[in-house]
């Protein structure tokens, strides 16, 4: 008996979509809350769902700048800092993480205006600066937390506590996946697992189906995705026997859960080849590789270039939400967290991400993908305009910069403002909830209607908050 369920050849995208639309693939991934959902007649949760209203973005690429990029050194120039450099900081300083506040600290980097929009960008981001006409820059973001772990959880899950569903999980829960041989929410680990750990990407109380799958670089990007058997035939033999014995033991259709578990092996089997395929950059042209910086002499740049290029490949294959962590140079896990030696820290970190990010934007645009792909660049908080010690900056959740591009956002746009020191948001102040509401909105989801009942409440990514930032919509 030929085992038709295990296809050794990759199936086409069209086939995949056909399968997932109403077929076996969707059932394979159904999450089952015991048996009581049997009659709920809800569509299988991983199948593509219809959004609440027409979506502007189909996918999200979330460029997570962990550690806290200094906004006053990158996208939010503050001339007053130059003027008062070295003087005692004139605003009242809120409590900080290290309580080692120094004087007002000018940015060591110069800003220039770029593009038709004339938006100023510092010399830390020369490549991204050239794409500035594609960006919608929010200069008035705020967070509720001054500590990394809590702020990371807050940025990812809308709660400053551990264990809630990540925004990628919510997107997957709300929209399902497009392809059926890859998870809907993938995290590309460029080197640094963020503070707070995998719970930044977990599905929390949502079914594990929506959990972020953390991919490393290379062929064994996913845990257990590489077959143990040295030859495919050996695994196929085993799978064939498994199929037969499963059928012997329980007649087809007897129990939906068992059927689903059987079918689940189909997707797992396909992932074994789909993952190495999507992670491999061998098929990318030399020009593309060059554009991203794959050949860079800097290992950090190389690592991030690979992640950015893989992100594009993943969304091309229908992955709904891709998040990138930042690379890390050996021996210094602090990423953007420049408590001291701001200059060295930010130069190293911007060097790592600048070219790859610009390449990603350029590449998406040239392939016509930027319109339907929302790119978000964000830290968990910004940094203080006054020094920590003499040459660092402490955490600042009261006002900082993030930007979005594509996916229905308004290009060449600046939204909101901080005060003249860049300390606190004072114009169009935004909250993380607003960011989430807006991202979901662009995906066609009403954040107030995307709920999951847990612990006696209908939980939302935005809790009881969130307003759509109409000022960044195209």
């Amino acid at each position, binding site marked *: 008996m030929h085992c038709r369920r295990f296809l050794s050849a990759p199936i086409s995208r069209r086939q995949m979509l056909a399968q997932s639309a109403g077929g076996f693939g969707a059932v*394979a*991934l*159904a*999450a*089952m*809350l*015991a*048996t009581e959902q*049997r*009659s709920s007649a809800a569509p299988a949760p991983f199948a593509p769902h219809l959004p609440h209203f027409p979506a502007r973005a189909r996918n999200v690429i979330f460029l997570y700048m962990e550690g806290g990029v200094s906004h006053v050194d990158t996208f939010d120039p503050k001339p007053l800092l130059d003027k008062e450099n070295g003087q005692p900081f004139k605003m*009242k300083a*809120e*409590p900080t993480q*290290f*309580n080692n506040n120094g004087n007002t600290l000018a940015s060591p980097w110069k800003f220039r205006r770029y593009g038709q929009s004339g938006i100023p960008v510092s010399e830390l981001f020369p490549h991204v600066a050239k794409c500035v006409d594609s960006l919608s820059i929010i200069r008035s973001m705020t967070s509720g937390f*001054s*500590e990394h*772990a*809590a702020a990371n959880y807050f940025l990812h899950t809308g709660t400053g*506590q*551990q264990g809630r569903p990540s925004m990628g999980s919510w997107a997957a829960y709300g929209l399902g996946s497009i392809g059926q041989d890859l998870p809907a929410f993938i995290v590309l*680990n460029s080197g640094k*697992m963020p*503070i*707070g*750990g995998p*719970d930044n990407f977990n599905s*929390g109380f949502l079914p*594990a*189906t929506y959990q972020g*799958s953390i991919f*490393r670089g290379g062929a*064994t990007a996913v*845990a*257990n*995705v590489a077959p*143990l058997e040295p030859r495919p*035939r*050996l695994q196929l*033999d*085993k799978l*064939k*026997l498994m199929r*037969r*014995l*499963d059928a012997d*033991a*329980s007649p087809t259709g007897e*129990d939906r*859960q068992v059927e*689903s578990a059987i079918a*689940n092996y189909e997707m*797992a089997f396909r992932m074994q080849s789909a993952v190495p395929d999507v992670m491999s950059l061998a098929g990318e042209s030399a020009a593309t590789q060059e554009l991203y910086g794959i050949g860079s002499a800097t290992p950090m740049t190389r690592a991030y270039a690979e992640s950015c290029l893989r992100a594009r490949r993943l969304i091309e294959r229908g992955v709904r939400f891709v998040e990138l962590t930042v690379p890390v140079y050996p021996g210094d*896990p602090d990423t953007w967290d420049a408590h001291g030696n701001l200059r060295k820290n930010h130069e190293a970190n911007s060097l790592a991400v600048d070219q790859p990010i610009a390449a990603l934007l350029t590449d998406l645009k040239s392939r016509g993908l930027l319109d339907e792909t929302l790119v978000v660049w964000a830290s968990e908080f910004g940094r203080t305009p006054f020094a920590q010690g003499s040459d660092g900056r402490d955490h600042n959740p*009261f006002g900082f910069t993030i930007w979005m591009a594509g996916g229905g956002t308004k290009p060449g746009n600046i939204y909101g403002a901080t005060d003249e020191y860049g300390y606190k948001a004072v114009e169009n*102040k935004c909250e993380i909830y607003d960011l989430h509401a807006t991202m979901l909105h662009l995906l066609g989801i009403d954040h107030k209607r995307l709920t999951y009942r847990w*612990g*006696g*409440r209908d939980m939302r990514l935005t809790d009881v908050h969130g*307003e759509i930032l109409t000022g960044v919509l195209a």
Partner: protein
Amino acid sequence: MTITDVPCDNAWFAAPFAPWLAPSRQITMGPVRQAQDRPDHDATMTQRPARLRPSSWRALLLVGAVLSISRCVLARSSPADSTNADFFETRVRPIFAEHCYKCHSSRAEKLKGGLRLDDRDAFAKGGESGPEIVPGHPENSRLIEAIGYQNPDLQMPPKTRLPPDQVADLSRWVATGAVWPVRLAQGGPGTTSAGQQPRAAQAPAGVAFDLQARRAAHWAWQPIRRVQPPAVVHGDWPRGPIDPFILARLEQQGLTPAADCDRRTIIRRASFVITGLPATPQDVEAFVADDAPDAFAKVVDRLLASPRFGEHWARHWMDLVRYSDTLGNEADASIPNAWQYRDYVIRAFNADIPYDQFVTEHIAGDLLGHPRRDPDCRSNESIIGTGFFWMNEGKRSPVDVRQAEADCFDNKIDVLCKTFLGLTVSCARCHDHKFDAITQRDYYALYGYLKSSRYTQALLNRAELDAHADELSAIRERLRGAAAAVLADRAASLSSYLMASGAQAGPADDRLSPQRIAQWRNSLHAVSDVGHPMYPWVKMASLGAGVSQEAAATQWRGIAGQVTKREAEATASQRREGDIELAQFGDASSGFGGWFVEDQAFGPAPCRPGDFLAGDSPRHPIQTLFRDGAWAHSGYLSRRLQGTLRSPTVTLDHRYLHVFAAGRQARVNVNIEHFVMIQSPLYESLRWVVNDDGARWHTFDLGMWKGCRAYIEFADTTTPDLHDTAPAGIGADGYVAVSRAVLSDRNDPPPRIGLPGGSIVTGIQRIDSLQSLADAYQRVAVESLQALETGELSARPDAEARASYLSWLIENGLLDPLPGAKEDTQRLETIFNDRRDAESRRPEPERAPATIDGTAEDEHVFIRGNHANPGPLAPRRLPEAIAGDSQPPAPATGSGRLDLARRLLDPSDPFVPRVMVNRVWYHVFGRGIVPTVDNFGALGEPPTHPELLDFLATRFVEEKWSVKKLIREMVLSRTFAMSSAGRGEADSVDPDNRLFHRMPVRRLEAESIRDEILQVSGRIDLRMYGPGVEVFLTPEMQAYVEAYGKPAHGGPLDGAGRRSVYLTVRRNFLTPMLVAFDAPPPLSTVGRRTVSNVPAQALTMMNDPFVAEQAGVWARSVLAMPGLSEEACIRRMYVEAFARPPSAAELSDVLTFLDEHGKELGVPPDRRASDPRLWADVAHVLMNLKEFIFIH
């Protein structure tokens, strides 16, 4: 101050401050010049009312508003104030309309904070936080604070700061009296204000919350009814009292129950349900062959008696209390000894501890008069239960420590109420519950129990260590007598040496030791301070030998005067104005004066002046005597003892804390708002590692935490804090001694002027010669040592001076044995030997995270959940809807948790038994009678069989809360014996199987899958208890940096073969295989796990090295059985994995595989029966079969 007459209606806001004025005219406090005349707003805003400086403007507002609003608002706007009115209409109202009405008006989609800015009276009343402004006082007005954007917790409008000119206009408006003209069209002024409370302490305005109506409307609040099993048609089907309930409902729907399943199915099912492990082939075959009518009952009893039962059901319980070995968050720090709690739960289930006892121990196990003791080692079991409170996520170095506490307590309340009550009380953190009969006050009433409790690492083998300390204490008493007697003997020649030390020429008596004389001289040479006990001697001796009696008497009077003066100074210096003394051990009539002491080291009371610190040998039997007040000393019996001393909780109204202490390898922590993870950044200054035998002041600068609640903790223990980065310098055999802890606004410690020791002789009537003084000194020494011998010295009123004198003698070696002297030291030798021997036998302290009482405190309701915005006080009690509104108040001391536990378990509370029987039902049958096992509230699902639920709850209580009996009854029911096979018609009538028309097919829990793999392979190691096996670090986990909590060394791939319950649960490094199969993150109560179906599960079973390794182990163990044919091997493996032999088709499929796959692997036919590689693949396939992970 300007006083301006203002027409009443325009000044009504000011009325609260002037309730004594005649109703027709009002005086506005503060400047009320026309705003246009006063461009200088800053000056306006900084002036304060001259007549009245309210410390709490809110309180005054409240009083004033009640007194006078109703009268003064009746008047109407007069033309004289039209300018102000115009200002409001042209400058103020437009700002409100543009920026505020969206959330604060009648047209707001949802009124925020209960505040309206479109209605004069509503605005006067204020929102949930009370009135928004104080007319004339922008600096005291919330509204102005909010638009000023200086307070991060209070910024309005929320998104964008108002332009400066608008901020100025609003400030000016408030400064000039906040005139808000009445519009006649509004329906007549003043009609709504009379009698209104200005402040809504209860539900937010506009939300109807009727507790009793909600309580009456929902089933779960109703008492448990005593019901009998219903009558059924098919009376032969029921096997026990449960079955009629199930059958009756089926019959109502015209359904019949499923047929009984076969024996192999039910033993596999029962084995997994009760023990979480598959039945062994021997047990299966024995059961199949047992024809006795009670064959299955015997199986069930055996399974319930197996230690595996406790392991499995403990894991269920651990889901409820979000069990974890670490704190997660940034550093994933350890919760030291968390595993003790896991073991406690396992033991409790195995011993079938009555559930009411188990609940009591969780909530108040530390407060039981007679804690339950482990039958084997006699250690305290009860207190371990309280450890569950501390399994919450722990934030590292929070910038807002009160917020961190509020978040942490929220999680504790959530877990407490879901676990024991099945209620989502934590939904009422910010407002009254949206659906259930739970008020916000109920939430904060529980908060107080946590606030009055503290974290500790409780000593479990306390009885053992108490006995050991008693032994040391007895030895010390023996030493007291022997040492004092020896020293008194040595003091017999004191007078002679004193005289000799003053003589110019050689010794008068050649029997005196020249060395000792020199020692005396040297010691006396250093005496110059008037406070010194020898000061009178030195001064008198300085007069020389030939002095007149008269001159000597004059000198003596002078000396006595000086000493008396110093006495007065010393007494006066004890208190510095404004300082708060936290440690007043000397004033305490007994014990530690309200401080909290744990373990043995500090003893029953502080050491008072005149008490002694033991020396180390017969030569120095006493090290010194306590003086300068009373000392809490953790080394007074032995440095080997451990102990902790904690202060009462105080409010940090002062910036500095000065502590006067000495110690070795000990620490002093200041724990603020229950935050005990003392580490950098931000918190390292809250720890002082004490490593200096000389007592000194240490000053903590607490300026960052002003206004917070805090307590000080002196710890002489190696027990780590609530994280595993124990500070350097802390050791097992240290001590800490403290005499003073002072809160002060001054950064310099209080001066210390000791009582003058010379008073021991200055009070003596006749000193007329040096000899008489020397005699007096000797007499005092001998007397004092005799008093020490009998234990009376420290009770003497002059104990301080005597102690200082004796200490000086001892510390200067003046009471050492004389050179060449022969003493009988045998008795002392024996005592010191006994002491060393006893010290070496100190039992090793065993500890567990636990909860103990601190200072009794209630918490305020936090308005909208914001800790910075406290509302009315919410005294500790159970939710009103459970225990009524007239619960007796919590005790004045301690947390009152024992009371809380008793109220929870009161027969009038229907939740505790119902919730537990429902949990047990869920685990036995795969679905709860109330499917939402953690939520019995309005958003939960109602019970499918309410009568059955009440029947079981009643029975549970009657059967003395025995969980095992409950499970036994369920498993022996006929309902449990039903087949799981699909049934076309019944499945369509009851598609969700809500009526239990058959047994649901269930996937095994993650831990059972892993345990099953280990058992089937034979690798399982059934050792119980102890520290967890470290998690295996997969390549993904290796990528994590160590600073964020990655263990230095990962555990073995197979977890050392231990059951999954013994794997360490690291929040940031959960075992991937368990996570893949839905083991929940330890976040909050998870009574019902998700059952998902994701590729990671298939990938795990197909490709995970652990599964493959175990497949190999299994294959080798089967092949190692002697004389098994291929077919017999297959049969054996089937029984091991599935409790049944393979069918013919299955057998043939595997044989075919052996043939084909053998060829593919290049295994020759004659080696086929024994090739481990080939058979490992068979084993691997069997582990991948669905039957392996599903229970039918």
